[in-house]
């Protein structure tokens, strides 16, 4: 079949698969949102429209606390992890081989290679010893544990991005008498942004899902949304959780919209 315009970016079937993928991603989400407005307790039978689960979630201090704590922890851990991962990616990519590189690579990816339960138990032993020694029981442990766990997820996309960048650009900047810092600030960093963004987003959602490690590291009053859910697993999971999930989705939409508006105005 002849097409009037030949697009070099078009690959047959890719658009269809992409659309199907998006549908697959959002179908369960739609179900979840719908049932958050269910009047009954069932997650499978529709008993009419109601806002009672939102009301219940708002009135439940524990649910409120754990949700906010999860968000705060995810933002903090993902931010720190992204910063550290960016530095590490700069130190290990496009620099030629150097002694110890493989070891660094292995270390960075190590949190990926051990199941959460094992890291959790090991961290429990380790962290509890520090807690006993120092008496400090704050959120620092969770931040450190989540950060460590997020680093590989942030590092790999940033590294992948860096590897596709052309050294010639920085060389050209150097030719034009830009200092290495200027070259980094005005050439490399802007080019890295998509990788950094991807890394941050991965780190963020990974931290939001980290449950077993949190369960073992948390001190009194440090439940997060996943550990709260884990505690419910043996009993019944109330539609309150659907309501919370829907609120998280709404929040994510606000963030995306805000981001879109900001980048658009800057683009003008």
């Amino acid at each position, binding site marked *: 079949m002849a097409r009037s315009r030949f697009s070099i970016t078009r690959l047959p079937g890719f658009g269809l698969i992409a659309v199907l993928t998006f549908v697959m991603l959002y179908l369960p989400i739609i179900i979840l949102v719908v049932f958050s407005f269910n009047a009954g307790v069932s997650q499978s039978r529709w008993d009419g429209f109601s806002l009672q689960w939102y009301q219940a979630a708002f009135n439940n201090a524990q649910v409120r606390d754990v949700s906010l704590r999860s968000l705060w922890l995810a933002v903090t851990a993902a931010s720190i992890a992204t910063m550290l991962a960016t530095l590490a990616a700069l130190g290990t990519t496009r620099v030629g081989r150097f002694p110890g590189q493989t070891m660094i690579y292995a270390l960075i990816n190590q949190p990926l290679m051990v199941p959460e339960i094992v890291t959790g138990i090991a961290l*429990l032993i380790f962290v509890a010893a520090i807690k006993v020694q120092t008496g400090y029981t704050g959120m620092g442990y969770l931040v450190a544990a989540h950060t460590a766990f997020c680093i590989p997820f942030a590092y790999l996309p940033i590294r992948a991005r860096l590897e596709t960048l052309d050294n010639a650009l920085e060389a050209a900047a150097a030719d034009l008498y830009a200092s290495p810092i200027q070259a980094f600030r005005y050439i490399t960093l802007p080019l890295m942004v998509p990788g950094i963004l991807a890394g941050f987003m991965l780190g963020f959602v990974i931290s939001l899902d980290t449950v077993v490690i949190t369960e073992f590291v948390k001190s009194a009053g*440090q439940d997060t949304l996943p550990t709260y859910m884990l505690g419910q697993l043996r009993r019944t999971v109330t539609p309150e959780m659907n309501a919370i999930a829907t609120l998280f989705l709404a929040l994510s939409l606000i963030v995306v919209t805000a981001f879109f508006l900001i980048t658009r105005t800057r683009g003008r």
Partner: protein
Amino acid sequence: MKRLAGWASAALLGSTALANAEGMLNLYNWGNYTNPEILERFTAETGIQVTLTDFDSNDTALARIRQGGHGFDIVVPSDTYIQTWISEGLIQPLDREIVTNLGNIAPQWMDVPFDPGREYTVPWAWGTTGVIVDTSVYDGDINSIGLIIDPPAELQGRINVIPEMSDVMAMAIYYHGGERCTTDRDTLRAVRDTLMAAKPHWLALDYGAVDSYVAGDFAAGIYWNGASMRVRLQNDNFAYGYPETGYPIWMDNAAVLTDAPNRDNAMKFINFVLQPEIAALISNFARYSNGITGSEAFMDEEMRTAPEINVAAELAEAGRWGQACPQEVNDIHTQIWTELMQ
């Protein structure tokens, strides 16, 4: 530097539960098990702020507390673990000066094998592990574990079993006439063979199953009494059976930790939950009985009449306390379980 700043702000945000603060109490309990109204009432009455933290299994809770540095005051472990908590010195004897309501504990729950005379613990909630059956699918006698481990044709392929190794093993061992921690090889062999033969008929081994029963995914299963009641309230085809060959009784008990930073507040809370009205709040929320005399009067109507909660007299004697088996026996159970799930 950034990390330090992060830690500093973290300390502000996360550690409202620091040790030794006046008027604080840190409760470490099963998830979705503590009626918020109890905490509100306790705070209103005493001015003590309660922070609730969840655990998801006895093993997690024990591992956490053993390592120290936890900052909790009260923990609510199950009966089979209590002896370990006591013998390792993790929980302290009740202060009878403060805990004056001990007399409210119903006599049958006072002299329990895991804590005779209630030196260390008080009841929080108790229940049974039995079988749940969709009576529109199977209309025979439901008081038999055979429905699960030697299932009739109509139930085959529609069975769910809670993934609790000790409960499942116990019920299978009772079925073959053995003691909970038997080392008799013939019995254990029979248990293994029975379970291996039953496994192909099981559809799933799943906890969060209330909805799956209601939605008709499962027609029978091994389940807890309170959860079974939740199922029945949404779909009255379901009934709860007490296997006549023996079924586990379990009880979660509140205790004060040896290194509790707020020991006196903890004792006050223990005393507080021994009041019938408060104990009834626990039951109404968790859907399990509590073992406190006179609490029935404050319970929801549907709890008071539920066959899942009120064990019929002729079936009561088949109920048996759980027991933590010695490591070598537990090892055999784990091996059978692993073989079953491989």
